[in-house]
């Protein structure tokens, strides 16, 4: 079971990105499911993600990095038993710090994960302002990522995107950086090159 953990501040575009990837997985017949965590009392993203047709499990009213880590583990056990998925897409809350999530995952008692990839999702239209006022959280999300996806490039100015990419590359020198927009999506083959061959092969 491969885990793709999506982190990124509130409104950065995690749900939209996951919905797009879920549709790719569904189209390719992959056994997959989604676990979504929201800090609010009422889950909105779960309803959006359910549009993919993929099984969705919702963790609300707390953050999986600190308050409901046990719920994340038990939910992973539950989906593993129910669906035996090849890939689980985990949407962390927008205020989650990735290191704590990754530590929590180390307590998963089931079969060892084939891989755990952390994807940081960044909104260039607000990056500079958010980085200024929420620096520890924003930097923690970027620094822990195996891959960084800059979203909303159709809404941002060219200079905003370029400056965002410069900063995230400085904060995480090892992670590849992608840019996406509604007309330019991210392919799973880019996200999981070893486990997911390019389309058309």
């Amino acid at each position, binding site marked *: 079971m491969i885990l793709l953990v999506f982190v990124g*501040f509130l*409104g950065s575009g995690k749900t939209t990105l996951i919905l797009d990837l879920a549709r790719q997985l569904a189209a390719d017949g992959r056994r997959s499911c989604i676990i979504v965590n929201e800090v609010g*009392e009422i889950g909105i993203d779960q309803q959006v993600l359910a549009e993919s047709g993929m099984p969705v499990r919702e963790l609300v*009213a707390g953050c999986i990095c600190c308050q409901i880590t046990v719920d994340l583990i038990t939910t992973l056990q539950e989906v593993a038993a129910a669906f035996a998925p090849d890939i689980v897409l985990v949407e962390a809350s927008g*205020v989650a710090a990735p290191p704590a999530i990754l530590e929590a995952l180390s307590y998963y008692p089931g079969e060892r994960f084939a891989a755990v990839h952390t994807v940081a999702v960044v909104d260039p239209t607000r990056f500079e302002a958010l980085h200024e*006022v929420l620096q520890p959280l924003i930097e923690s999300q970027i620094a822990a990522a195996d891959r960084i996806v800059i979203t909303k490039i159709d809404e941002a100015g060219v200079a905003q995107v370029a400056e965002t990419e410069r900063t995230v590359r400085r904060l995480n020198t090892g992670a590849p950086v992608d840019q996406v927009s509604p007309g330019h999506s991210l392919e799973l083959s880019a996200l999981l090159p070893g486990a997911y061959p390019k389309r058309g092969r």
Partner: protein
Amino acid sequence: MDRRPRFADPRRLVADFLEAVARCCDEKGASVIGHLKCYAHLPEGDHFRCSLTSTRAGARCEGAAGRQTHALELDLAVLVYGLTSREVGACVTGVLENLRSREPFDFSLQSPSTSHDHGDDH
């Protein structure tokens, strides 16, 4: 004849609602507008969603509901920094009252916001 109020453009109404709530949060001193988002259910079975991350960019809606309707059920999340749940709730109620002057309707709030002091856990 059906005398229930009609929302001529439910998506526009909800977008205006989110934008007004965000402006209210700004005016009350929210330090960061995190994310305002909602999922709207219509009695006809349609649904759509709207999202806002800044007052400048405004709300974006996707999904069905291009036609008028007589009722809307909204699941709403207002995720902002720097305001109490009471202040956010007051914004939501105040904006609904204001919108009623444009298109008369009744509303009820079923689940008030709650505070979430996530920052204290790190």
